[in-house]
């Protein structure tokens, strides 16, 4: 069953960031969206982008819609970007003495704790919603991160 809400969010994000193409793979589901280029008409009309065309790869049922905001990056065609769902400080481990939750090369699945994001003295465990292997860790320990900031690149398996 296609998640129309997710498609709608992707379209909104494309328009907001003026993207022409997005490709997203989440497990066995793949979504490709392409927008015609926006042309300035210079007339007295409000200029709004034309609606996106959607093509879907026929699919097995998708996993539940992620609470984490979806990435709009088109650079990492085959990698999934996990971005921050909040504003706070990134911690790679549960405390300064412990080893990091994940390293590059580590296999993760939905539920694996990836990091901690702290704000206002509340420590939030951020769990993966995808299966894959950590390809890159994009935030440093104790770094301040904003909403939507990329934290991890995961190669899906």
């Amino acid at each position, binding site marked *: 069953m296609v998640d129309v809400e997710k498609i709608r969010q992707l379209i*909104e*994000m494309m328009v*907001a*960031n003026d993207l022409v193409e997005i490709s997203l793979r989440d497990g066995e589901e793949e979504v490709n969206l392409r927008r015609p280029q926006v042309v*300035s*008409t*210079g*007339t*007295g*009309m*409000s*200029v*709004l982008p034309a609606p996106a065309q959607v093509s879907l790869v026929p699919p097995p049922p998708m996993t539940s819609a992620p609470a984490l*905001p979806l990435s709009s990056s088109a650079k990492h065609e085959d990698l999934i970007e996990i971005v921050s769902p*909040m*504003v*706070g*400080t990134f911690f790679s481990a549960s405390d300064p003495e412990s080893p990091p939750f994940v390293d590059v090369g580590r296999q993760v699945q939905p539920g694996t704790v990836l990091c901690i994001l702290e*704000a*206002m003295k509340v420590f939030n465990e951020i769990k993966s919603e995808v299966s894959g292997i950590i390809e890159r860790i994009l935030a440093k320990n104790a770094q*301040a*991160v*904003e*909403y*939507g*900031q990329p934290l991890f690149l995961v190669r899906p398996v």
Partner: protein
Amino acid sequence: MFRRILIANRGEIALRILRACREMGIETVCVYSEEDRGQSYLEQADRAICIGGPAPKDSYLRSDRIIAAAEIAGAEAIHPGYGFLAENAAFAEKCRAGNIEFIGPSAEAMRQLGDKAAARDLARKLKIQTVPGSDGVIDDDTEMLRIATQIGFPVMIKASAGGGGRGMRLVRERDDFADAVKQARQESQAAFNSSAVYLEKYIERPRHVEVQILGDTHGKVIHLGERDCSTQRRHQKLIEESPSPGIESRTRKDVCAAAVRLALAAKYSTAATVEFLVDAKGRYYFIEVNTRIQVEHPVTEMVTGVDLIKAQIKLAAGQPLEYTQRMITWHGHAIECRINAEDPEERFRPCAGVVSRFRAPGGPGVRVDSYAHDGCRISPKYDSLLAKVVVHQPTREAAVQSMARCLEEFIIEPLHTTRGFLREVMSHPDFVAGQIDTTFVERVFTRLASEPVRK
């Protein structure tokens, strides 16, 4: 004084606050939603932090993320601007609990004056005339009808938790009353999550006269005079001016004094605006208090020379008022026009898109507050205020002429805006004569005065 301030707002007011902070040598952090990413006013901040998705409830209303942003950026205070969380007492408390100052009143003072019914109670205690009405919120609809009959029709049903004209119903005939109460309760529930309503006598053709006050945390309050905001459409202000062209100096003295007394009684600090209706006989009635800086604050800045944003910041930092009442003087006449990205020909439908040409007017005594520029994207997700044009001249006549010229000079393409409509108002004999009341726009521009298309 604060070293660093976080601005929890967007658009023209964010830019206004940024400018004040920069002039005071205060570092700035500005939050933004994904919808506002790339807006050029953000470049004026020392740091900008994304706090969420396009919808206000996912970003500008997210108090947790805003406070977290202040934390990670090391901001000592948050300026909430207007709208969004500016009059949210819980947010003010959360900030202070997190050791971050909220640039506004104490939560207590905000609650005392921000809640319309509570403010009316306080006004009555202070013998400040309020509009005759129910003594507070009435839950029983039969009781409401009894009071309405007692007050005498026409009456206004108003939402206690409301603002911006929503949850309000005007009832002229007794027969229409029951339905109107139901509708007002429903609208209020949907907009403000509360169906509490109260009643007021409806005053025919009143002027909307509001008083700007400043208060410090040392018990002092002063007023900076009044603004006349009678040119409204559906309770949304279009044009504001100071001084008010149609009130006696006795009335001016009285409303300003009443405003100060009210603020003192509530131990109010920083900036607030106390609103009154003034009828044709010069009788004034207290309506409500806005416990924040207002859109139209530049009007008062022009006639008094006082920078209200800087004053807010200093007062929030605990400094005593740097002005005594005697030190405030008024010069000339100022008028502000709000130019909205709306199409007056299409019932003021909001317009979104990219501004291709933006040429603001200039010249002596002209001020334009706007975040827009060539290539600026106007989002459909937020309010439609595009620019505020403010003129300051020695006389009202000269100010009206100057504003007419400015509205002609202003180029904003290709979006539909209210610029042309405002230019028409500027030539209308009633406006030129200063004979305006809150029914003026709807009476005179009847072809434009139908149901608004609000988001």
